[in-house]
């Protein structure tokens, strides 16, 4: 049977397409783009030629045994030394020639400890703007042996804004416990165990009532029987930054 002319022509086109594909696949494309092993090997080689920067935690242990032993038992045991102390291969090679730079900024710790709802429950997290905002983390926390968040002794750790407002107010010398009785549980469960607030007018009246015995001279005085009779004092006056001065 005679092969029709159009089949010849299509066969030529097909041959060109197939030839082009084979040429591209086996000649033009570099081998490393096709073979995974070659691709990996080339990448490894390329990376291996780069200058080394990190010494590795084992190198640090050789000299800083005490710190390493402490850290090995701490919550930070999985962190690498050079994560905070920056890449230090030069220091490892010649300790006296180069000192590692230590990152002490708050933002380094915040990388892991800033509040983020997707972090696991129980992971220590803080509100960076409210948690002792002006202090470096390392002033209170030892990064080689961070302990679980300690219950604050003072209210300011959490209520820093109030603390700062009070510090410049005429109530600066009063302690928080003068007015608030905080149950011990408030430190571990702040939202369920709430501290008390003054619940009577006489409480403020002890200093601000006319004719109160032993009241400080400089405290402004009001007649409790006529002044805002139906409200508690702090419903109108903000006790952490009271407006009245005499």
């Amino acid at each position, binding site marked *: 049977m005679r092969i029709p*002319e*159009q089949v010849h022509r*299509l066969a030529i086109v097909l041959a060109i*397409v197939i030839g082009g594909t084979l040429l591209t696949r086996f000649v033009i494309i570099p081998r490393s783009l*096709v073979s995974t092993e070659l691709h990996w090997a080339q990448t490894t080689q390329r990376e291996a030629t780069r200058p080394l920067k990190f010494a590795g935690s084992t190198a640090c242990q050789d000299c800083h045994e005490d710190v390493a032993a402490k850290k090995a038992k701490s919550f930070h045991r999985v962190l690498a030394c050079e994560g905070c102390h920056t890449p230090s291969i030069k220091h490892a090679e010649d300790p006296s020639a180069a000192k590692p730079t230590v990152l002490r900024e708050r933002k380094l710790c915040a990388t892991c400890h800033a509040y983020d709802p997707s972090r696991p429950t129980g992971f220590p997290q803080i509100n960076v703007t409210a948690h002792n905002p002006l202090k470096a983390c390392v002033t209170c926390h030892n990064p080689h042996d961070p302990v679980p968040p300690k219950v604050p002794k003072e209210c300011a750790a959490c209520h820093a804004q109030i603390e700062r407002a009070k510090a410049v107010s005429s109530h600066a010398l009063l302690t928080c416990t003068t007015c608030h009785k905080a149950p011990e549980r408030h430190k571990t469960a702040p939202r369920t165990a709430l501290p008390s607030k003054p619940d009577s007018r006489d409480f403020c009246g002890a200093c601000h009532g006319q004719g109160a015995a032993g009241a400080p001279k400089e405290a402004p005085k009001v007649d409790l029987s006529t002044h805002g009779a139906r409200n508690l004092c702090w419903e109108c006056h903000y006790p952490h930054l009271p407006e009245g001065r005499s």
Partner: protein
Amino acid sequence: MTAQAREGLYELLEQVTGFIYPNEIEIHWSILIVVYPYVTGLVAGAFILASLVKVFAIKEVQPTYRLSLLTALAFLLVAPLPLLLHLGQPQRFYEILLTPNPSSAMAMFGFVYAWYLMGVLLLEIWFEYRRDLIVLAQTSRSPLNRVYRVLSLFSKDVSPEALAFDRKAIQVITIIGIPSAFLLHGYVGFIFGSVKANPWWGSVLMPIVFLMSAIVSGIALVIFLYMVLTALRREPIDMACLDKITSYLFYAVIVDFSLEALDFIHRLYQSEESVKILGKLITHKLFLSLFVIQILLGMFIPLGILVLAKARGFNDDLRKLLYFTAVILIQIGIFATRWNVVIGGQLFSKSFRGLMAYKMEVMGLEGLVAALVLLALPFVILAVLIRLLPTTRLEEPLTP
């Protein structure tokens, strides 16, 4: 985080309801991914309409045969563009060709596409047009005659045996072409249907629903183009052809609707843990695009119009008007179908407890303008194709 990013995040946060995971706030598959299955569906549908003539020998549909093929080609050429734009570096498209990945379901589109374009559509068009290309190469002026000569691959044989061979070849290619067209669009449905983590997508019915809606949209598009083309050329419309195709369209819409209803009832009866959030999704986020545009405007009203046009023996002009309205509504409805699948599937959280919002860009690689350009581009290509390749068989006597 830059100040601008933070502002953008706050703007998005206001549109979120309920609980979502942090990485769900951005809708990654944009309107371009809506355009992609829509355009691909038009290709498959147009081709299946063309195959009615050759495989099932439905003579009435003959006037739209070539138009269907050219429509399929014009839209097929545009089909990968939304994907390439969405990937962000369209100028690197050739890398896909250099390093094919046979184990990726997504990369499989390249193989299906290449097979359908080169193994089916171009081949069928070439055999269909070979004689006409030879005629045109002889009758048209330079430099167009050279173009025709190249397109005909310098073929010259117009003997009756050669033409008989062309017809035979077309027959064979069409028979291979039908499963290929099914594969092309079934594949698009398969990609969505196989995402088992997403209850809105993960359904075995997905490829079939996609396919049926593709047939609906393809037939409707060819009817639309046929009516516009005859109007532009001031030719009479072949009403027998139009009545026949619209009755196919009618059946296709019925089947499509039944499949979608089946899918819906099946989900409702299965009532998996996702059913509540999906209920919220369709009543809160997709109410307009699903109930109003897709089902009411895109299905019920066109079905009503088609029933009316068939049953009441209207005159030709009124029937044309009714058909024309119906096919436009169907196009809008099918576009809404794609929107509801692609965007709808990304509007609820994997936690099943929250809903997100999709804010469409206007400019930019993935914006509305890019989508409109991509939707207009096939018509430009089609205009060029129709200018080059006649939609009716040439009758000029051959010069010896």
